[in-house]
Structures are given as C-alpha cells and as structure tokens.
C-alpha cells in the first residue's frame, strides 16, 4: 500500500517536472530558432550563455507585476480561466506513454481521454474572453470558439485513423501496434492531425483568436502578471502536448533504433515542437474565412478519405 502510494507520488512528480520543464525548453527554442530564422540572435544576456535563462527572467518579471482585474470583469471566472486553460495539458501529459510501460496513468481509453481533455483548454479561453468584459477579448473568444468547432472534427477524425489501424484506443497499445510503414499509410492523417492540433492550440498561423494586429491580444488583452504568464505557459504546454500526441499516434512514440525509448520520445517531441515554431515563423496568419475553408474543405475531406483507406487496409490485413 505504502509502496503503491510512493509510486503514484513519484509519477505525479515526474509528470509535473516534465510539464514545467518541457514548455520552458520549447519556449527557449522558440526564442532562439525564431530569432535565427529572422537573421537575429534572440536573447543573449540573461544567464550569461546565449540567454539560456531568458524565460526564468521573464517568469520573475511576471511574478513581480501587478494583477489587474477590470472593474466590469466577472471576477471569479476571470481569475479561474488561466487554470482551466493550463490544467488540461497537464492531465494529457499523464496519459502519454514515453516508453514501453512508462506511462504515468495507464488508461485503456487514453486517446479518448487525451482528445476530450485537450478540448477543455478552449473552455479556459472562452472563460477568459467572456469574463474580461472587453470587446476585443470577446471577439477573440468567439473566433476561438468558431475555430474549435471547425478543427475539433478533423482532429478527432485523424486521431481515429491510427486507433482503427491498431485496433485499440490505448495510446500505449497504438505505439505497440505501430510499424514503420504506417508512416506512409497514415501520412495524410498525421498531417491533418498536426495542422488541426496547431489550430486547436491557437498557434500561428492559426492565431486568429489572438491576432495582435487586429484584436490587441484577443482573449489575453486584459490579463497581466502571473495569470498572463500561465496563459503563455499553457500555449507552450499545448505545443508539447500536440507534439507528443502526434509522435505517439503517428511517429511510433518510443520506437526507434539504438537509443532507449524515452530518449526517442523526447527527440520526436522536440523535433515536432521545432516544426511548430518553424511553421509559425514561416507563414502569415490565416484570415478567418481562410481558416474555416481550410478546415471544412481541406482537412475534413482528407481525414474522411484517410479513414476509408485505413478501414479498407485494416480489414485486408486482418483477413
């Protein structure tokens, strides 16, 4: 009994550490990679060596800043929103397997759980948008809601494809069933999942809800200090989660030659995070109508076609 409790505590601690460290790592990667892609250097001073402590310095700065709650804001909802936006990603990380059997919480419905919980992050955004009592926040929130409606569908349809191929909803089971040739077979689903995931976490080029040139800062307009920092952390945690889910569903998770499993998982997650940043630097923000068009006319049909293909091949292989 005691040992079991200890294992649970240990698992929670590891997940928490990963949850706090990986987004920082991705954030720093974004600072530097984006800077060099724009022929800049990025942070160079904080911490001495190439600004490695920049995000620590940012965190300290955010903590020092005052919390301003607008007079007309719905105080409780306004203050709760960052937590609602951040926590789902922590919960998702708990079901992502990093190695054979190395998963914080074994769930047979892992994929279902991950997708369901990721959707909650959007609720946090809607809470922030509505409770801020600010027209820019509200427009940003409505855009976010429309985006969620459009992109949740291709996201789920694309995620179903590997689940169908593996015959299980367990993330560990999907990785175990994964074979290298799935890379080609599941490629359209992987692309759709990744793009829809980007839209789900509102990363550029899908950052219409934030659109700083149109909406000040969208649903984040009124936030400051630690709560703003939590939203930013949620964004980077979202990158980690989407990258991890893509790696587990489509890239074979911990599978890879030579190196141990968890290292492969980490490599894949970091590489996908880099792609997220790369896309952000390369492409301009989509217009609202382009955003909807891409989801309904592009991603959903591709995901459906992939589902049909997966079904046919799965039946053919089984028989």
């Amino acid at each position, binding site marked *: 009994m005691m040992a079991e409790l200890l294992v649970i505590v240990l698992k929670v601690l590891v997940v928490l550490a990963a949850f706090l460290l990986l987004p920082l790592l991705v954030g720093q990667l974004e600072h530097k*990679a984006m*800077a*060099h*892609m*724009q*022929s*800049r*250097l990025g942070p*160079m001073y904080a911490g001495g060596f190439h600004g490695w402590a920049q995000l620590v310095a940012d965190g300290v700065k955010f903590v020092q800043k005052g919390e301003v709650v607008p007079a007309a804001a719905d105080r409780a909802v306004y203050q709760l929103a960052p937590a609602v936006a951040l926590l789902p990603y922590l919960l998702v990380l708990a079901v992502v397997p990093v190695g054979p059997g190395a998963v914080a919480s074994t769930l047979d419905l892992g994929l279902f759980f991950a997708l369901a919980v990721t959707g909650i992050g959007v609720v946090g955004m809607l809470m922030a948008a509505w409770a801020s009592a600010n027209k820019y926040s509200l427009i940003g929130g409505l855009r976010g809601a429309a985006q969620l409606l459009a992109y949740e569908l291709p996201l789920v349809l694309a995620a179903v494809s590997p689940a169908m191929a593996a015959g299980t909803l367990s993330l560990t089971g999907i990785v175990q069933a994964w074979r290298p040739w799935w890379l080609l077979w599941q490629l359209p689903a992987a692309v759709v999942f990744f793009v829809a995931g980007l839209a789900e976490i509102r990363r550029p080029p899908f950052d219409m809800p934030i659109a700083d040139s149109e909406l000040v800062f969208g649903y984040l307009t009124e936030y400051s200090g630690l709560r703003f920092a939590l939203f930013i952390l949620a964004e980077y945690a979202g990158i980690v989660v989407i990258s991890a889910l893509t790696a587990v569903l489509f890239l074979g998770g911990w599978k890879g030659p030579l190196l141990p499993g968890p290292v492969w998982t980490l490599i894949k997650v970091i590489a996908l995070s880099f792609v997220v940043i*790369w*896309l952000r*630097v*390369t*492409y301009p923000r989509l217009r609202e109508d382009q955003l909807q068009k891409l989801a309904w006319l592009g991603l959903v049909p591709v995901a459906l076609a992939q589902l049909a293909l997966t079904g046919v091949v799965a039946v053919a292989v089984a028989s």
Partner: protein
Amino acid sequence: MSPGRAGAGGGLARGLAITLRTMSRRSATRQYPDVPPDLPPRSRGVIALFEENCTVCMLCARECPDWCIYIDSHKETVPAREEGARARQRNVLDRFAIDFALCMYCGICIEACPFDALFWSPEFEYAEYDIRELTHEKDRLREWMWTVPAPPPLDPGAETPKELAAAHKAAEKLAAAAQAAPPRAQDAHAQARDAHAQARDAQEPQEGNA
C-alpha cells in the same frame, strides 16, 4: 513565384526553405556594445582640434553654418628678434569650443581650416545626460586628436597630392639643371627655363595641378 505556377504546396515549401536557410546562416545582428562597430574610413564621429596648429584665424567659426564654434583669444607681443627691428604680435588661443548639440557634422570647419588644425575622428560615444556637457572645450577637443586615424591611402589612379607634385617638380628641375651641365653663365637663365618646360612635359597628366 506566383502560387499558380508551383501550386500551393510549392509556395509553402519555398517558404519553409527560406526560413530554414536563413536560420543556417549567420545572423545580421551587430552586437554593438560588446563588439565595436566596423566603421568605414573617414567616418564623421567627432571633430578634433590640433590646438598647436590653430592661429585663431576664425575661419572655421565664420564658416560654421550653425555657429556652434566658440573662439576667444588675446594678442601677445613677441619682442623683436634683432636689434632695431619692430616687435611683432601673435594670437594666443584662450578658448576653443564646439557645441556638439548644435553641430550638424557638415565638416565645413574642417574643410575651411587652412592650417590643418581640425580633423574628423571616428569616435562617436560621447552622449551625455546634460546637453551642456556636449559643448567640448579645447582640452577635450585636443584629447580627441589622439583618436584621429592616419589618412586612408589614395584611390588607384588618383591625382598626386599638391604637396607631393610640387616636391617632385622641384626635384626634377634640379636634376635637369644638373644634366645640362657645362655651365655657360650667360645662358643659365635660358637653361632653367628649358628644364622647367621639360618637367612640365613629363608631368603632363598632372598639368591641371601644376
């Protein structure tokens, strides 16, 4: 490239290639306070005063378009060097100041100075918190002299500087005079004139300079 030619995918891939290529190259950032900038020769940073050359002729102050040069001086009497000669007077510089808050770095004072007392220096880090501190007095202007670089070499094919051309000419004249040696005293004058013409022919390209 128009998106139609390579299709949407081609354009998207090109975009990704551009950002990746930029990332693999050296960034354009100059890390200025840590790494001093690489300034071109003849950079106009600050004006230095070579006080020893200044004769208080006031030409710089009068040519200055925004009147940012302040000069004060007095006269000193130099006693006669020889018995019975007249005592002479010379100017002594008391104050020479340039107000860099007014200066527009046109360099006209430096062009105007006939005695090579003013120079450009590439130093530019002399910002101040108080605008009055930007008026550099003569000791400070003299200190800038140490930062004045040697003049850059002339461009290939440039005209020989006046001083050099004159020296060359004098030397050639002497050589010509020595060559036409057997001295016939009464013809010396004519000989010198011939040598002069020879030297001029030799220096035809620099004629305008002579």
